[in-house]
């Protein structure tokens, strides 16, 4: 049965058309995947369906009847619910309050019954198999946990159409499985799901239909039967793509960085070493301490004990500035918080970290900045209306590319990549993989933190598995497997 249909939806921002007469039809009891490159317009499209923005033209039909949503509130009343790509949370409120915001349970007298609120939240969590304390403040959670709360919040709505915009980009396999179970459950109840993701394996596993957008235009809809990876990819990128993972043989050189018994917030007694020309992968479940380790190594978190040696010499890295000067670069997993100045332009964000290098004394060198920004935008295929667009209005994947390009302009020797392909389309992923490969052939060292195990397995020379802030296992690439990693990552 058709639950939702959108026809001829168009939308422009500041004179740039980002959606051009796109359409889509969703049936109950099916998962309809929406895919396309970064900046193709997927999120914009969904935000229009959800009443977050008005469309410039086009009509939305719910159960065959045309509707006009003046806001998210209207869309929700028509049975739509959405997990947004960017986290839309209330950091100062508790998990339970976040889940029930807008529909708090009231007592007989009309006021909020905090105890029932928490109980209901706890029940919901249990029911869905999520383990997050409901009385904690949202800001105390890791991004992954926040994402899970958002999922719980969205699916607990009494809705008939669920829109999920990259729900798995910030969570690990384990949590993703929980989501997949929930999706199966909803599907069984006859609900419709629109699912956006850049992860091909998820699409093949979940989708009943796939609609592809490119450059804001509708490209086509295919049903699951007879769908081929090759065809899908060329629909997405408009050309053929080489093999995704092409790991060249590497020849590790001397040790670049060595950590001994490192302790810091969330990191307990970690020792590791990275060689030049080597990719060190770090695996772990959510909250295993990988991000904390990355932060400690990049001067973002105070090191409480232990020692770091660079090129054999003990160094103290007490600020990101010190890390940068010593040749350590970090691509953060939380670009919104640590990575970008949202109101500043793409150009300014790209050159910010390496501004000193690209200026003349205390004066800026605008011409050079423009040239550098254009070069980087070309190189990482950053899709923006111009280099002067505010980076906060770029699509998620393009923002990630800006972070990456900004970091590598500082020309670090050790590059720490924390979930670098989060939310990145398949074409761009390949470019990032090629970039990582080029780093190692130039004798740089890379620490790669990723929750996508196939990616980690394909790119790393060695893999560390973390749990509870400690390194629990170390394995060479040819000995590693998904099963083995998961075995070490989970508690015994």
């Amino acid at each position: 049965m058709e639950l939702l249909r959108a026809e001829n939806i168009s939308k422009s921002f500041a004179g740039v058309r980002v959606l051009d007469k796109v359409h889509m039809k969703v049936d109950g009891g099916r998962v309809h995947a929406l895919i396309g490159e970064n900046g193709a317009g997927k999120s914009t499209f969904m935000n229009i369906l959800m009443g977050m923005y008005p469309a410039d033209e086009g009509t939305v039909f719910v159960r065959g009847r045309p509707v006009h949503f003046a806001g998210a509130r209207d869309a929700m009343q028509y049975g739509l619910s959405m997990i947004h790509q960017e986290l839309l949370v209330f950091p100062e409120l508790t998990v339970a309050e976040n889940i029930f915001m807008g529909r708090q349970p009231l007592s007989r007298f009309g006021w909020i019954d905090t105890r029932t609120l928490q109980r209901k939240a706890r029940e919901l969590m249990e029911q869905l198999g999520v383990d997050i304390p409901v009385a904690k403040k949202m800001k105390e959670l890791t991004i992954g946990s926040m994402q899970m709360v958002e999922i719980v919040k969205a699916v607990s709505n009494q809705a008939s159409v669920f829109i999920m915009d990259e729900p798995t980009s910030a969570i690990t396999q384990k949590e993703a499985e929980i989501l997949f179970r929930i999706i199966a459950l909803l599907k069984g109840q006859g609900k419709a799901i629109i699912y956006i993701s850049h992860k091909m394996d998820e699409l093949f596993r979940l989708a009943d239909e796939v609609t592809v957008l490119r450059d804001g235009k509708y490209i086509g809809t295919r049903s699951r039967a007879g769908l081929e990876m090759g065809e899908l990819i060329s629909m997405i990128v408009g050309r053929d793509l080489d093999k995704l993972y092409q790991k060249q043989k590497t020849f590790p050189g001397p040790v670049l960085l060595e950590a001994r018994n490192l302790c810091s917030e969330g990191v307990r007694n970690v020792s590791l070493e990275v060689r030049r020309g080597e990719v060190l992968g770090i695996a772990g479940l959510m909250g295993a301490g990988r991000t904390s380790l990355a932060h400690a190594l990049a001067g973002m978190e105070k090191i409480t004990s232990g020692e770091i040696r660079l090129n054999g010499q003990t160094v103290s890295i007490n600020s990101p500035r010190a890390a940068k000067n010593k040749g350590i670069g970090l691509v953060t997993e939380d670009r919104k918080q640590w990575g970008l100045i949202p109101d500043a332009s793409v150009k300014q964000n790209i050159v910010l970290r390496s501004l000193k290098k690209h200026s003349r004394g205390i004066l800026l060198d605008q011409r050079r900045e423009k040239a550098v920004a254009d070069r980087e935008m070309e190189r990482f295929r950053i899709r923006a209306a111009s280099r002067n667009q505010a980076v906060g209005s770029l699509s998620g994947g393009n923002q990630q590319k800006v972070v990456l390009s900004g970091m590598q302009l500082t020309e670090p020797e050790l590059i720490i990549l924390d979930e670098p392909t989060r939310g990145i389309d398949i074409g761009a992923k390949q470019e990032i993989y090629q970039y990582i490969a080029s780093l190692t052939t130039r004798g740089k060292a890379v620490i790669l933190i990723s929750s996508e195990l196939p990616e980690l397995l394909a790119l790393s020379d060695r893999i560390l598995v973390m749990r509870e802030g400690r390194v629990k296992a170390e394995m060479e690439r040819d000995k590693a497997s998904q099963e083995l990693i998961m075995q070490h990552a989970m508690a015994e």
Partner: protein
Amino acid sequence: MNMNEPLPLVSKLAKRNYLRKYGMLTAFLLICLVLSLLTPGFFSIQNTTIILRQVSINGILAIGVTFVIISGGIDLSLGSVVAFTGVVAALFAHPGEYPLIIALGMAILAGLAIGGVNGLAVTRGKVAPFIVTLGMMTIARGLALLASDGRPVTGLSDSFNYIGGGSVLGVPIPVLIFGAIILLSSFILNKTRLGRYLYAVGGNEKAAYASGIRVNSVKVLSYMICSGLAAIAGIVLASRITTGQPNAGLAYELDAIAAVVIGGTSLSGGIGSIGGTVLGVLLIGVINNGLDLLNVSSYYQQIIKGAIIIAAALIDRKK
């Protein structure tokens, strides 16, 4: 600089956590302690009553603006609204003309109307709250002067004057009103949907919108609550000085906002509590009272007052 949120590393953090949570309370108690050691008259029921009565007007205003600030706005028009509503109340409070309730009702209506205009200009008009309420600050002052023809409105009825001057069981009525407003507003903020929506809108407006909250209505309400309370403060003030004074309330907004911020409410919205605001109000009140009692010369008083406020905030420092 360590900008990350710390993990509960019990020993060291316990202390830091205590200060984080109760830093301002500690600062407040410290100041009280010092003052009661320095001045014999400070720590007495009589002086406590005086302090409470002194702070009640600023307290009512500060609670009002807490609503607006939690929802992510600001209100600079408070002082002028106090003057305008005080004049309105006084105009209807001459003996033998109207019943008391009319005077009070008209003043509160005037306050609510101003709040409504502020709220609509912010939401429908999409003008920054700072500009809207700065404009309203000037407008309301002009209205107060116009309504009173620039002269204090005097000759008010005894029943009206009793509001600011009277006591019930030894507790001054302004203090009772302040107390009632504290209770009511804590209840609204913590126990009603409106209260939680205020936090949600201030904490993340887009997320609030996406959660189906009527963001605009919530904001308008916050401004109306604020100006409505300012009207109550205006009534209390006018009846305390037995005059509708068009030039009253100058810079009151600054004292009110200061109390709110000292009480830990963030000017960027989404964080704050009535308890904190009350503490901020008391802190300012106690400093003013104590420095007067100590007979510190007026110039040094200003220097010391400023220094104490900063020092208290240092003890309370967050992050």
